[in-house]
């Protein structure tokens, strides 16, 4: 399959230079490849929240559920429970699933359900024109925090690790090879995969220069070690200083998934009427 076949007629409305273009391109390439490798494209379902990130589902000619702000996980969870053969991939912004929908994200990781979450982490609300988010650095001057935000940022990867996610990685929208590799691994991983993608918002929080200078790919790390993963993840806490920013796969574990262990009683040929009569008889 040619990645171009996955394009729709929707007009792309992202700003020129937006990091989302890289995610779109990387994903299209990965899904086109996987189509020939046992993940048929018709089995893929994309679920998005609301925000700039979410427009990606309009630009991909693939099954999709364009959900509401913060609510990707519950929709995706039910789709997976309904039909475990489907490959469900979620897109969310840092405001979307770390603020509005944080409870769902923690529970998805806790269940280790076989879904992939791609976090378009631009650390700012773009569509609402520039407010601070849970991953904005302290002191971020946004429209809702003109004097600078006083909160420390949240480290979503740390949260995902302790919540039970079994594939945790960070990518950057510069460096497509690494991003494609991580997305591919995340999608193929059995269990809850979380990929934090440093995706730059050119209009409200242009971090290209900083990220180009400070990011590096972690190599040779033991991805089976919770402690090592935690150490790498904690080495950068989304601050605005000079700390180096690790990229790559930080953690992977093979553990039972919710969709495998869920008592997903087969919709077998049940004699509904006979069983109902039996229940009625027990109400006598």
């Amino acid at each position, binding site marked *: 399959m040619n990645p171009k076949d996955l394009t729709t007629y929707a007009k792309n409305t992202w700003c020129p230079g937006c990091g989302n273009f890289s995610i779109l391109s990387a994903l299209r390439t990965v899904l086109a490849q996987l189509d020939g490798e046992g993940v048929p494209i018709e089995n893929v379902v994309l679920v998005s929240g609301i925000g700039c990130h979410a427009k990606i589902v309009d630009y991909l000619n693939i099954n999709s559920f364009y959900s509401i702000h913060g609510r990707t996980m519950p929709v995706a969870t039910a789709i997976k429970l309904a039909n475990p053969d489907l490959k469900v991939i979620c897109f969310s912004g840092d405001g979307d699933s770390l603020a509005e929908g944080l409870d769902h994200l923690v529970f998805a990781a806790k269940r280790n359900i076989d879904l992939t979450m791609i976090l378009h982490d631009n650390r700012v609300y773009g569509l609402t024109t520039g407010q601070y988010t849970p991953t904005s650095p302290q002191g971020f001057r946004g429209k809702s925090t003109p004097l600078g935000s006083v909160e420390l940022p949240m480290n979503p990867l740390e949260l995902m690790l302790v919540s039970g996610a079994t594939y945790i990685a960070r990518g950057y929208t510069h460096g497509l090879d690494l991003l494609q590799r991580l997305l591919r691994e995340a999608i193929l991983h059995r269990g809850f995969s979380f990929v934090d993608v440093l995706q730059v918002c050119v209009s409200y929080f242009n971090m290209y220069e900083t990220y180009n200078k400070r990011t590096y790919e972690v190599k040779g790390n033991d991805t089976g070690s919770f402690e090592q993963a935690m150490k790498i993840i904690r080495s950068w806490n989304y601050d605005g200083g000079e700390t180096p920013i690790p990229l790559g796969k930080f953690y992977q574990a093979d553990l039972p998934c919710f969709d495998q262990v869920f008592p997903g009683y*087969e919709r077998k040929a049940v004699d509904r009427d006979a069983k109902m009569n039996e229940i009625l008889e027990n109400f006598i």
Partner: protein
Amino acid sequence: MDNFSTLIGGIAGDGINEAGVTVGRLFSRLGYHIYMYYDYPSLIRGGHNFSLVRASSHKIGTHMDQVDVLIALNQETLEKHLGRLKDSSFVIYDMDKVKAEGFKQKGCGLPVSGILKEEGALPIMRNTCILGGFCRVVGIEWAVLEDVLRKHIPKKLEQNLQVARRGYDSAVEFCRVEKLDMPTLPIMTGNQAIGLGLIKAGLGAYVAYPMTPSSSLLDFMARFAPDFGLKVVHPENEIAVMLMAQGFAYAGIKAAVGTSGGGFCLMTEGLSLAGMAEMPVVIIMGQRTGPSTGLPTYTAQGDLHFILNAGQGEFPRFVVSPGDAEEAYYWSGVALNMAWKFQVPAFILSDKTVSEGQYSFDLAAAGDLREEAYPLWKGQGRYHRYQYTETGVSPLAFPPQKGQVIKVDSYAHDEYGITTEEPKITKDMNDKRLLKGGSLAKDLEGYETVKVAGEGKTALLFWGSNKGVCLEAAEKLRLRAVQVLVLSPFPEEKLKEALAGIERVIAVECNSTAQLARLAGCYGFKTQDRILKYDGRPFSLNDLEAELGKVLA
């Protein structure tokens, strides 16, 4: 004997609900119709619980204030319910716990604690012991009680039988409840009936977060999930509940959710999504006394306008409010069918009275319920999720579909499911959704969406759980009883026919602002009087008769 009322009371943890159901089952076996009101505060142990079980030779759906037999497991029960005693009433009490003071009626004390001690029985068996005594007092043969206990006691059956027998032998016969030549009907709560109706109509998944008075429906679904191949999920909150239901629907599984007012508040953004994305979903909304936490375990009909208007934007919805277990069964199934035939949210608007009250249930009388077919894509050409059609309903397809794409969208969208801001498509799609509402209303013309009983120039206008009390009061006072079952789309024509020739309309509701009367008023129907109750308790037959007496005087 037309009516026989029994009240059993004790503290939470005494098994008062189950004891009341046992009394109901005893009378059922004698051919009686049953209605049971269960009253309990919001706590786990302690407090005052009571079950008021009414048996009648006729179909009933309400209780009466006075009782024929009062069973007191503690002093508080006796004190609180002395006012319910008639001259002819009889009191049964645990003589080890209750001082037989303050009443002149006949009674009998049973040495319950002594019997339990001698038999080495657990405290929970107190009610088994006293129910043994009850059977003797009202002349129900031992064999009938033994049959009920053998069928329904899961643990320590022999010991329970022994304790019951000792209670039976310690009591004296006071009267003899006659056996009717009528079939024995099952007894169930409205929630159980809702569960069975949904399952009958093809439910595949149930998603809920516990909240009184709907929690017992979640328990029911979870318990029977393996038998019916149901996927039952209890997620992190009601927001997830509502969204999960739509994930299931996207993948082709018929789903329902259950909650009460506070939980439904969290579901409203998801409800609006269902309206825009045209996702079929059934919502069971068990009303309780509000606002806010209110009285968690007591009843109300305060959320009608909330349900009718919840969610931003305009979109059609189906709302039905069943008045007893048989209607709960039938209309829950209909709601599921309607949700899928018209891809709309469908509400089953219940309340604590219907959801947790016990009713005799006659499947044959409930109506012929079937799983209905809904518009499915026939596999020709390119699939468009939101294709324009004559009915407004676009055929459904579920992933995976080789060579096809199924796109669902919360934004304004085109036929393919791609986001748009074009004014013409925005308007056309809005019209398409409203057209579905019209198609739904047309389909409902074949259903009894308004029920009428009795004749007269004065009508009682009511909905939901007030059915039982209004039917009975109307019959007694020769009034016309008009029950509005479907509240959206509003059955304007049928209500017009139902009220033909009526000079005076009395609205009877369990809220403080007469919500049905206000709704009917929007369609030009005038109500002359309003009888409203909003103290958390349902009308008893006596309550309503007294109020009607004032209004009609």
